[in-house]
């Protein structure tokens, strides 16, 4: 779930050998260990063209326009569900996916709500939307008992007023932040009731004056450099910030928490567009990723959890052992999964978001 304002940057993998066939993959930016791409080409002899995108909206527009030319794409599950409805994907052929048995039933049961029985898509990685903090600065401002694992840290105007001088970033993604505000108010995070959404808007407007910026990727470096105190962001991104700060040894300690009131759990899913030029090659690529060791290599590299049970024995200790990446069962209970919004609710939410951000 990486989002950057820049338009998608294409990173084609150039190969010296001549290949009989090629497969085109469209995935999130910074979302794989690039050595895996070379490994795929060596093992299969298929030329891999690997492009990246930075927002679900960009991918969805390509899918709905049709003729994208990609063989494998990786939308987030709630977007995937709507795209399946629109007829954008072809059913997976499990006879070509020898490693499909590696999937983790815990994740599968959750993704089934979007795509029953994995008919069209199979999980790549998943994570939560939560709160990243600069531990030192936040405890300095709010005291040792600062609620760093609670939504009240970012939704209570009293806390936010004190934190604002130090800097608070929010994701620029209404479908992530408005469910969090609904959860804070004790309402259903997937509410489509306009009154409840308006209440969430009021709650966000109350803390709006103290929000430094809405942005979906800048917070990684801002947290790592110690420029800001708090970011509402995606798990793996905050953990990247934590690692960068540790590497820089700049005295900044970053921590990630999924809020105790409940956090949004998202799933990025591999699927094959209905008009994919090389569906057979697409299955080979998905099967390659589903291999336990390959999947583990990807997770060890990007610090996101995956939906592959068999890969867990190959995961590094600081990945599988970190409850920020693989939450314990108790936390897992509190996580909620988003449902795709109908067109009318989506419009209400987008309009509310414009109002929150620009005041118009």
């Amino acid at each position: 779930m990486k989002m950057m304002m820049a338009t998608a940057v294409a990173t084609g993998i150039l190969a010296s050998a001549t290949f009989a066939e090629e497969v085109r993959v469209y995935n999130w930016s910074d979302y794989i260990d690039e050595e895996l791409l070379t490994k795929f080409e060596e093992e299969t002899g298929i030329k891999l063209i690997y492009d990246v995108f930075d927002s679900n909206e960009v991918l969805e527009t390509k899918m709905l326009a049709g003729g994208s030319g990609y063989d494998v794409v990786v939308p987030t599950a709630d977007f995937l569900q709507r795209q399946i409805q629109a007829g954008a994907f072809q059913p997976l052929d499990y006879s070509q996916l020898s490693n499909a048995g590696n999937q983790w039933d815990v994740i599968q049961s959750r993704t089934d709500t979007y795509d029953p029985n994995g008919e069209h898509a199979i999980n790549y990685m998943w994570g939560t939307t939560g709160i990243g903090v600069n531990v030192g600065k936040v405890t300095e401002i709010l005291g040792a008992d600062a609620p760093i694992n609670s939504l009240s840290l970012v939704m209570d105007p009293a806390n936010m007023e004190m934190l604002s001088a130090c800097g608070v970033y929010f994701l620029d993604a209404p479908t992530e932040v408005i469910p969090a505000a609904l959860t804070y108010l004790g309402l259903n995070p997937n509410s489509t009731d306009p009154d409840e959404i308006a209440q969430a808007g009021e709650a966000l407007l109350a803390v709006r004056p103290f929000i430094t910026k809405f942005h979906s990727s800048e917070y990684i470096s801002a947290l790592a450099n110690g420029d800001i105190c708090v970011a509402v962001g995606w798990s793996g991104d905050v953990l990247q910030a934590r690692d960068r700060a540790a590497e820089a040894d700049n005295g900044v300690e970053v921590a990630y928490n999924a809020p105790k009131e409940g956090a949004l759990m998202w799933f990025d899913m591999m699927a094959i567009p209905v008009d994919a030029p090389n569906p057979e090659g697409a299955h080979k690529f998905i099967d390659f990723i589903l291999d336990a060791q390959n999947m583990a290599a990807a997770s060890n590299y990007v610090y996101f959890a995956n939906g592959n049970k068999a890969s867990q024995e190959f995961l590094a200790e600081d990945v599988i052992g970190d409850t920020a990446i693989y939450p314990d069962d108790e936390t897992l209970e509190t996580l909620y999964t988003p449902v795709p919004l109908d067109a009318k609710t989506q419009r209400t939410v987008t309009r509310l978001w414009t109002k929150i951000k620009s005041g118009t």
Partner: protein
Amino acid sequence: MTCGCLGRIPQDWCCRHERARGFQPRAFIGRSAVKRAFTVIPYIWLLALFLVPFLIVLKISFSDIAIAIPPYTPTLELSEGWQGVRNFFGGLDFENFVFLTSDDLYWKAYLSSLQIAVVSTLITLAVGLPIAYAMARARDDWRPALLMLVILPFWTSFLIRVYAWMGILSNEGLLNQFLIWSGFITEPLVILNTNVAVYIGIVYTYLPFMILPIYASLERMDPSYVEAAEDLGCSRLSAFWIVTLPLARPGVIAGCFLVFIPAVGEFVIPSLLGGSSTLMIGKVLWEEFFSNRDWPVASAVAIILLLILVIPIILFQRQEVASRETEG
């Protein structure tokens, strides 16, 4: 257009020269079929790349949103024959345009875009005109090099140049570092993520589009006109005002259009340099298209934008033609 320096230059002298400078497009009188075929090419180009896309967008603006590929309905089903055509036209309505009037967001965004575009155009003109004038007055052997310097930035991607401005304008950026180092300020100026940064970005990006047409019209000007005006008693300033500027007018008008029109619909610069409170129609359009997935409303926004731009421009051109005719 008024001519004559303090009445000493005969009216028809400079007016005649103005007309001779190619104000009016000469009608093309092709004799051979080959020549005629060549004149058709621009029309085919306009038809295929302007009129047809416009009609498609217009059609989508009358459609309804749908969860499908493409995400709107109705689409023309020729396989259903006459019934298909009837369903197609029956499904079109003005609903999306009515919707645009129901929310003040759209009008505010149009007005704010127009304001940003007008201000940027005026600043670009104020910066570009002296540069173009200086270039046109430079020594003959310098001009190609100066022209090259204006064009040179185009060799780098536009996106990278806007990103470079982010590096210059940010709180820890080069500009603030320099100002703090030189002691002008103690606290960094907040420029990035404000409208000031948007103005800087637009003026910087579109400056060559202002300089080049003005330079082109000034460069062709015979310096003896100004000499004649000065011989007849004009000061340098009034010679510039009465002779040079009117001759640069077509370049100024072209430059203003080249800056103003893309600036109104600008999306990249406000989203990279502007803050969340920068309201521009390009961004509203992006949100309709990508966040709301509502291609029909996005198309309606685009059609209205086109009307806002095209109607005043047509009126302006008529006015121009009419004033030229009265002068003639």
